[in-house]
């Protein structure tokens, strides 16, 4: 068994991706009375874009032909790229202070998220241009993107088995766009572009205030912890499953464009020599479809299931789970891995994951555990930091400080 796991560890390093998971240090606490937890994480990744391109997205610079070719060689019918960054601070009090049964927790979180899902045609027509599509169809179906910045406050009750809370979310900015169906027909001589689009775009009223008065969300946070082999005290393995932000959001007077139309563009229509002075782009089309309206929608939620722990005396524990973020151009992410306990205080591990914004990913992590502190550093991006052709990079830091 050990040989198999070591082999898995070894080959995981040959893979070139990494992706972030919601690894909370608190999960590894054997007993909880009061604690403060800090957690920060950032991740950027793609199903096909090499890090050399992804880095250009956040550092700026030039995307050269070699990068483009590498990205194109990994294209699927549907592709993703995304960035998420989160920081939160929480206070947990597990003593039965509410109804003599439940403890409580408080949490403040700031989340930035940017993601896109697109067809191979969409990518190639944008990055390489549409010249190669003369006489062909650029399929845009299911392409979409989002950009989001939320601040949220959560308050809830808890015990050793579950947490249940309500969270208020201030939506600082939100842009969502989706093409349900459609594409662009490029005539063979490029004298006509025929776009058939069914989709929408919503853009919120942005605010620089800490709490945006125009846009808010209200949701439930729920987490359940179920011990496996609970009758055997030699085991601490458990399943932790939860959902964050399951609720509704209100966007006040958001700019909304809905398209369900066929647009034929043949360039500027010239009927008089003075028409040559006109713009060649039909500026009035989008204007006419614009409207400002208030919307009540589902709040994007996060769903997760983690299996952690094992036989207490064992040096190696397995871990696996899944994660999903709704309305975020995100696919279900599944992962599995193992961790090695060097001693009671220090643990290292590695996981392989698939999904999310990326495809096959690999990450390593280290955890320090003492009576008062559990701190974890997840270097999911470890390989991504060094290999330009890897497809993701990220960092996750989590620290839990136990109060007396």
């Amino acid at each position, binding site marked *: 068994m050990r040989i198999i796991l070591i082999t898995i560890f070894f080959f995981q390093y040959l893979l070139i991706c990494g992706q972030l998971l919601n690894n909370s240090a608190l999960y590894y606490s054997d007993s909880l009375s009061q604690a403060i937890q*800090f957690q*920060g994480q*950032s991740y950027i990744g793609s199903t096909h874009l090499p890090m050399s391109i992804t880095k*250009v*997205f*956040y*550092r*700026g*610079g*030039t*995307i*050269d*032909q070699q990068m*483009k070719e590498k990205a194109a060689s990994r294209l699927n019918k549907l592709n993703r790229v995304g960035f998420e*960054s989160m*920081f939160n601070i929480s206070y947990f009090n597990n003593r039965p202070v509410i109804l003599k049964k439940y403890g409580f927790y408080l949490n403040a979180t700031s989340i930035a998220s940017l993601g896109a899902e697109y067809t191979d045609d969409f990518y190639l027509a*944008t*990055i*390489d*241009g*549409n*010249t*190669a*599509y*003369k006489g062909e169809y650029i399929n845009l179906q299911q392409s979409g993107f989002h950009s989001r910045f939320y601040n949220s406050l959560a308050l809830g009750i808890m015990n050793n088995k579950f947490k249940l809370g309500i969270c208020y979310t201030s939506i600082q900015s939100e842009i969502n766009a989706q093409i349900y169906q459609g594409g662009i027909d*490029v005539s063979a*001589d*490029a*004298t*006509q*572009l025929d776009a058939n689009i069914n989709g929408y775009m919503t853009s919120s009223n942005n605010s620089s205030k800490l709490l945006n008065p125009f846009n808010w969300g209200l949701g439930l946070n729920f987490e359940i912890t179920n011990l496996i082999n609970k009758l055997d005290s030699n085991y601490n393995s458990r399943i932790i499953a939860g959902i964050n932000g399951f609720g509704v959001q209100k966007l006040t007077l958001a700019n909304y464009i809905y398209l369900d139309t066929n647009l034929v*563009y*043949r*360039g*500027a*229509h*010239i*009927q*008089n*020599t003075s*028409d*040559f002075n006109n713009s*060649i782009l039909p500026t009035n089309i989008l204007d006419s479809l614009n409207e400002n309206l208030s919307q009540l929608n589902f709040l994007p939620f996060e769903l997760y299931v983690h299996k952690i722990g094992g036989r207490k005396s064992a040096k190696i524990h397995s871990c696996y789970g899944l994660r999903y973020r709704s309305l975020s151009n995100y696919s279900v992410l599944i992962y599995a891995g193992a961790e090695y306990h060097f001693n009671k205080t220090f643990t290292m591990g590695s996981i392989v994951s698939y999904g999310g914004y990326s495809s096959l990913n690999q990450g390593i992590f280290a955890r320090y555990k003492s009576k008062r*502190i559990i701190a974890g550093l997840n270097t999911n991006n470890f390989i991504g930091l060094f290999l330009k052709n890897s497809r993701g990079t990220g*960092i996750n*830091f989590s*620290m839990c*400080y136990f109060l007396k």
Partner: protein
Amino acid sequence: MLKKVCFILLIYTTILSCIKNREPINWEANYSIPLAHGSLGVTDIISDSLYSINPDNTINIHFKRNLYQLSLDSIVELPDNQLSNVFALPFPVAIDFNPGQTFINQPEEQNFSINSVELKDFSIESAILNYTITSTIQGEVIYDYTVNSAIDINGNPFQISIVVPAAQNGISSQISGTINIPASNWNLEGSSGNEINTILTTVNVKVSENNLLPISVSNLDTLYIDNEIKAIVPISARGYFGEEIFQTGLDTTKLDFLNSIVSGSIGLSNIEMNLITNNGIGTDFRMLINSLSSQGNNDIDLNHSIIGQTQNINRAYKVGNSIITSESNQLINSSNSNINAFLENLPSDLGYDIMVELNPLGNVSGHNDFIHKDFPLNLDIDLTTPLAFNSNQLTIIDTIDIDFPDSSGVNYGSLYLELTNGFPLEAEILISTLNSPSQLLDPALISGATLNSNNIVNTPTVSSHVLNVSAESMEEMKTSKKIIISAIFNTLSQPQLVDFYDYYNLSFKISADFNTTVTVP
């Protein structure tokens, strides 16, 4: 431990701040887009005022241009006028005047200098009055100046009131300033009503109410007043404008639309040119056109009976306040002149030598000549020709300004033109950058439509052309911001004249393939 946490948070924050301060993202891509489509006929190219359609759908071209104009500014010049007064007070002994008491009240008639013109009245849009007043009086006085002849639109005379400070310790006080004179009518007939170039003014000087005590004035006190009326913008004038001769000498006016033609020839027919004299001035004129020449490939003088022959031009007259202009017309056509050769010479300039004599019979109106700025004497040419011609290697070269914004990012590319030519005209279009002779358009020849036996278009001709702009050419165009276009036109069925109909047109589709550097800020 806290230090470690802070250190990690610092790294995290630094990563985020890097994202905010990133450079623009850019990459190269090849795009193909439609640029334009449509069709253009003759009537789409020419301004509505320049053509008319005949019942048989042929087109007449009209061209009107002013050749000569004599306006108010040329005939009545209202120069700056200096109007000065010196008041040495006529009191041999010092007399005390109480606050508010007037001690000078002097109406005056003053000559308003207007060169050789004798005016009874004029009206102005505006003028400026500059004044300088010097006083030796040992007290503050109020100077009121009224131009009784200048009546504004409300019926009030122009008037100013100026506080002149007291002289101090034997040193004169001085005040000067500028006042705008509003739109007004100026009567120059003086107090008798029979004068010319005479205005009536009144000067009043009184002791200011600000003096607490009476002030003492004697013949040792003096008030110097300098008024200058300048920057007069006239609207109209009435009087006798004198006898004067205006001569243009040999002069030219450009015909811009023919300026670009560098070689070749055209054949025209049934040209009519009217020389129209329109006189809005209430004076008689005598006009002599010494010469009218076409300055193009050669210099060709117009041969017509009007050349060298004096024409009498009647004066305009008024009905109420309306001015009725006097108009006369001389028709010049191929049967009474060499107008065909005159225009087939493709003149870039029209040369002329014109003499106009004002009031050749003297002051026959009894100082009732009139002129208004909106009613000058005009000599216009009004040309009408059927759009029927032949052109043989008619070559037009023009330098076109183009402006590629730096942000366009276009590196190189090709324009594709699909043309359906419904004109009985073939054209060879040569397009090049300013410093390179290589031709960008391929093929350069746009064939003309095919004609039937009546020289009417039977079938339009379809052709495809590519305008290739290499990276070097694009760079050169971005630098020079110019391209040179040379077009050589030949009508079909030479040497017969070909009629152009209003339904002839050129249909086109233009698309572009281009390599561009996309920049995302």
